């Protein structure tokens, strides 16, 4: 079943007098449990597309449906709640809150829902165990390595058992060994939780284990290849 449906999405940025068309009519459907890579050169529109899928931005024209609902029709609060419950985010710069411990960072999405502290701690610790960081639960983000930070961010994205996790260049700030580890981790969590993952990258080496490769060039999808699962 289709989870996210991006329909003839255009995105235009005004940069002074010139208009930059970041997306020039993109159609994309993400199904439940898919592991999708969006790849392409710098400036091809990967981030822009990720923002649309994650409902943190709106297309200039076209539409985005989530679970069959047109997200443009939703109020800001409703979109916030949708993100909180159904969408997870992993950022290029990890974006952990520096004053919160690893565990507390993972608790955040639950805390936003008002889940009692005790309960969210247990769940967050469980999730940290899944990403192999149970020993680092009390560490501050700045005491963690890049790879560890990104794993905390993945645990945070997954804590609400969302339908989809959007990761815009999650490995851009990691060395190639750690980058592959992060992709592998996402892949195994994708299998375990049946959560869809959409990540962008410009590194073709990371495409080995994906279900589907969406190639973006100059704001258009030039190739959308499903790889038969191994």
């Amino acid at each position, binding site marked *: 079943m289709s989870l996210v449906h991006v329909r003839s999405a255009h995105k235009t940025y005004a940069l002074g007098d010139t208009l930059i068309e970041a997306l020039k009519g993109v159609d994309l459907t993400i199904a439940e449990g898919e592991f999708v890579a969006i790849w392409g050169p710098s400036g091809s529109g990967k981030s822009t597309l990720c*923002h649309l899928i*994650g409902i*943190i*931005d709106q297309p200039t024209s076209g539409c985005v449906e989530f679970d069959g609902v047109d997200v443009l029709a939703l109020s*800001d*609060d409703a979109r*916030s*709640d*949708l*993100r*909180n*419950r159904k*969408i997870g*985010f992993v*950022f290029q*710069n990890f*974006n952990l*809150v*520096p*004053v*919160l411990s690893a565990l*507390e960072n993972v*608790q*955040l*999405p639950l*805390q*936003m829902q008002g889940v009692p*502290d005790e309960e969210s701690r247990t769940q967050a610790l469980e999730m940290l165990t899944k990403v192999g960081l149970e020993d680092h639960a009390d560490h501050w983000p700045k005491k963690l390595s890049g790879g560890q930070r990104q794993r905390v961010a993945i645990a*945070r994205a997954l804590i609400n058992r969302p339908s989809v996790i959007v990761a815009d260049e999650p490995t851009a700030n990691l060395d190639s060994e750690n980058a592959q580890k992060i992709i592998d981790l996402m892949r195994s969590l994708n299998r375990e939780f049946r959560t869809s993952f959409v990540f962008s990258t410009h590194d073709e080496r990371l495409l080995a284990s994906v279900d589907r490769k969406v190639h973006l060039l100059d704001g258009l999808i030039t190739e959308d290849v499903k790889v038969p699962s191994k």
Partner: protein
Amino acid sequence: MNWFVFAARNLLRNQRRSAVTILAAAFGFAAVNVFGGFTTYMFDNLRDGFIYAGGNGHLQIFRTGYKENATTDPGKYLVPGELYERLTHLPETDGRIRLVAGTMELTGQLDAGDRAGIFVAKAFQPSHRDVFFKESKTLGRGASFLDNGTALSDESPNEIGIANGVERILGLKIGADVALMARTVDGQINVVDATVRNTFASPSSELDEKLIVLPLRLAQDLVQTEGVGRIAVLLKHRRDIPAVEKSLQALLEAEGGGYEVKRWDEESEFYQLTKKMFNMIFGIVFLILIGIVSMSVMNTMSMAIIERTTEIGTLRALGLRRAGVIRLFAMEGMLIGAGGALAGMILSFIVWLFIKIQSPVWTPPTIGRKVPLEIGLVPEYLLMTTIFLIVLTFAAAVIPARRASGQGIVEALGHV
């Protein structure tokens, strides 16, 4: 972990900035309370100075027209002696009333043998005066304002007190014999002999060279009446003023009317004017402090918001609603307010203690002598300022936070 802890940790991110903001709030808090404490102390003393030291009582009774004509034709507007006599028994039947004291104001000439001068006299029964001094709770408690000599007494009806200025210009010594000359109620000139028993500091410098105090009996003999000018009614508790005012009005109405009953605050113009002035000064100081505190909180929160733009974007992407962002920063503002109130309370207490230990003196108007300066920290004020400060810092944080919560998530995330 909850939002509160989160907010508190955020304040610790830039400790120096938070500390400076909290300190600004604390100074504002302390300034309001110390100044408020001083005005409270001052108003209490002005009030009690008027009621007790001034011998005016909580309520005053006089004939309609007395105030306007007291100096030109006093005789016509006196309260008859017979009525006054009955009123003096009121404390026996009305538990709220402590004392009913007749007074008289008169002018005349004071003859000191080789020199003479105009006098303005206040007359009262000396034993009544003692009651006023004894009942006083603040300034002048238990004391009179005598500089030399001893207090007047009912036993020596011909002994009088004179202000220092009178002593100086007429060259009078304690024990000197003088003659007092004035018009009687019938318009005749009358003279009585008197002896100077004490000298005192006049409450106002204009009166210093004229003011004398007489036993009521002597004044009545001088103007040849049994009546009195004003009657001061001293109560046991201030809260009874409105009720006693009503019952006195009813009682005097039954006597045929033509009398006025006035509360102390209606009669003390000086108190009213001073209070108005100080309330205005207080209001201005308060507004300035509100401005300083809210601006400094707003500035701090705006800076924090700019520094944490990416974080706000992250929280929003994770599903925090706009209101959640506002709430977080509002909490941080409120914590500054609460911290400011706490530090401000400590600061106020230190000032209070300092003044207590140093006990500086000042000369308040209407008292005419140096008294220790005090500030009374009022718990209600402290509580109210605390609440007010928290509300203020809350509002000052909400304003920039609203703007921050409204910005686009992608722009916020991309902010460096």
